């Protein structure tokens, strides 16, 4: 079998590389302790003889079954991969922008509500409201103050936990009247006719008032979500994919799920268990991909590693 790995992150290794590369891990057999990134590097070295392909920085958006039972996997950048079996090793899911509880927020997504700044030119000479108090809220407030007609930053707190330099710059911009800084406040409602035109803000005293806005950019960090996986017809229970522990197959033939993303009676979210699940999945996937071939189980201690 040839394998191709697709990951929304720009590097392989999932949470280990992205979230805690320097944290020690203590439950990998044979390693009393190993740094997360070191484990990923070792695993990468171990799979080298099999020359897997990689598509990184792209998220799988679509999974379409073909007439010959194969799949076409399409990514966010429209890369298409044809394959006979799909293995979802999605971990916590993908990190998506956290959305504040604001009435009609989703209705205006793409019509004035944006959770990230892709093209700052979109905001030129417009009235922008940003919400949040972290680094990205501060950074984009500073950046957009030179681009937009009017920038308002709404923050729930009284102080910022973001970089002190950026917080200071934002305070200076506010003093100079270049931005409108509204502290101890939340956005409660938005309104518009086809496109966002107003944002309602409530202060600490819960008194509401409305200001004009062409765009609202809520910046409240990222939160893990199942994402497009939820739309592939898989049995999902408590945000995890239900699998058969015989081979870690899902309810859809040809789709497997291993690691933290799956669930079954007795499931433990351990890297150790992920390895076991992967081994059993591979045996089953081989039989699915090559139904006419006989698979003889071999030990690497006897046969070595057979490079592709």
């Amino acid at each position, binding site marked *: 079998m040839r394998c191709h790995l697709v990951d929304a992150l720009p590097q392989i290794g999932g949470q280990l590389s992205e*979230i805690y590369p320097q944290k020690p891990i203590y439950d990998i057999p044979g390693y009393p302790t190993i740094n997360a990134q070191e484990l990923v590097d070792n695993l990468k070295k171990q799979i080298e003889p099999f020359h897997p392909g990689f598509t990184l920085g792209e998220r799988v958006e679509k999974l379409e079954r073909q007439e010959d039972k194969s799949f076409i996997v399409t990514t966010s950048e429209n890369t298409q991969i044809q394959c006979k079996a799909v293995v979802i090793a999605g971990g916590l899911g993908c990190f998506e922008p956290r959305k*504040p509880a604001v009435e009609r927020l989703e209705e205006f997504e793409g019509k004035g509500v944006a959770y990230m700044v892709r093209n700052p030119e979109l905001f030129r000479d417009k009235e922008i409201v940003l919400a949040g108090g972290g680094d990205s809220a501060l950074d984009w407030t500073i950046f957009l103050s030179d681009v937009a007609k009017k920038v308002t930053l709404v923050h729930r707190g009284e102080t910022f936990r973001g970089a002190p330099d950026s917080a200071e710059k934002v305070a200076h911009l506010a003093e100079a009247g270049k931005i409108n800084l509204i502290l101890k406040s939340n956005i409660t409602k938005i309104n518009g006719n086809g496109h966002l035109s107003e944002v309602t803000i409530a202060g600490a005293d819960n008194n509401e008032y409305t200001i004009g806005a062409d765009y609202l950019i809520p910046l409240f960090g990222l939160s893990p979500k199942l994402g497009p996986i939820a739309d592939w017809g898989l049995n999902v229970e408590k945000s995890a994919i239900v699998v058969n522990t015989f081979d870690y197959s899902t309810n859809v033939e040809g789709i497997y799920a291993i690691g933290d993303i799956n669930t079954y009676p007795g499931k433990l979210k351990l890297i150790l268990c992920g390895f076991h699940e992967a081994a059993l999945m591979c045996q089953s996937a081989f039989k699915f991909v090559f139904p006419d071939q006989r698979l003889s189980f071999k030990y690497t201690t006897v046969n070595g590693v057979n490079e592709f």
Partner: protein
Amino acid sequence: MGIVTFKVENRDKSVKELEIPDDMSLSLMEALKASEYNILATCGGMALCATCHVQVMEGLEKLPIKNEDELDMLDTLPDAMHDSRLACQIRINSLIEGAYFRILGPEHE
């Protein structure tokens, strides 16, 4: 071994008293999950996802102060208040005896 007793208010406003042993090095998040509360706790206790967000209605002053990770994560939450905590960062021990927590984070769909 001791038993720690505290109150939990679910999203439907129902309040239950939980009795949890203090010698299992459980976090409040783990105790809530084990008691069948519908909380995501996606990251498993690393203060990374903030999906175990609770509001401390009583007993806030007795809790150990928030560490940097918890402060950073709570800061990103649109609905965090001064009495917000991440349940994964609260240990089950005598300090939460008599406390009252309200579950706020998102639930499984």
